């Protein structure tokens, strides 16, 4: 078991091959001055484009993924003031219902935490070097298409 992450008072980002812990996310962002916590949980579903999915393998470039999480979290902190952000992404094999990502964001009022949480998950999907391999019946599997980083790196 391993974890790869960084933490400040305001931002915690991590990559883990242990089951992701919702309580850990809550504990980090919980703040007596914050009245709102928005929690996003990504979970493995049993179907995709008509295929019966049995599970997903998550592959990641560890250092660049962690760097992208930090960059995105810092951008969110600049856009929405006085928020706390927790990001943890799973790496490895997950069954149906397994949690692939937890994003928790707290803020004084709910609008900031909702908006920042949406921003963080959408940016991760576009920019973080993470890949999904879906597994189907009879041992078949497929790496899912995604967003090319060429556009991101070229600005």
């Amino acid at each position, binding site marked *: 078991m391993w974890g790869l992450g960084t933490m400040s008072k305001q931002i915690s980002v991590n990559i883990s091959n242990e089951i992701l812990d919702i309580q850990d996310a809550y504990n980090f962002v919980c703040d007596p001055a914050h009245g709102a916590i928005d929690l996003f949980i990504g979970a493995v579903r049993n179907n995709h484009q008509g295929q019966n999915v049995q599970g997903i393998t998550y592959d990641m470039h560890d250092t660049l993924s962690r760097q992208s999480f930090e960059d995105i979290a810092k951008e969110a902190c600049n856009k929405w003031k006085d928020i706390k952000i927790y990001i943890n*992404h799973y790496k490895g094999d997950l069954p149906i219902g397994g949690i692939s990502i937890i994003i928790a964001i707290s803020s004084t009022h709910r609008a900031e935490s909702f908006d920042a949480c949406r921003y963080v998950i959408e940016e991760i*999907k576009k920019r973080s070097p993470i890949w999904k391999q879906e597994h189907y019946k009879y041992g078949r599997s497929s790496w899912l298409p995604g967003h*090319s980083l060429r556009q991101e790196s070229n600005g």
Partner: protein
Amino acid sequence: MHLTKLQNRDLVAVDKINSKINVKVKYYGAFRKFGDDIEFSVPKESSIADIKAVIQDKLNAKSLVQSSVISNEDSILQDDYILNDDATLSILPPVCGG
């Protein structure tokens, strides 16, 4: 004297052509079907575009390589980035995390 200068310059040019660097490129996502990584030699001062061309030729995966980027451990490298020394790189296909 003039001849000597020419010879020296030519020798430097020949040295440059003959000078090779070793490159290791780690695979991720859809590239995993080809193994964990690929290693090859290229002339010194090859660009990232040159590296992608080598991988494209070796794997016969034009579309996948062209939609991918090359990185080192710190950042994504642009196509015109020049390699002067041995390098360990990664090839990153289109992403779909979350």
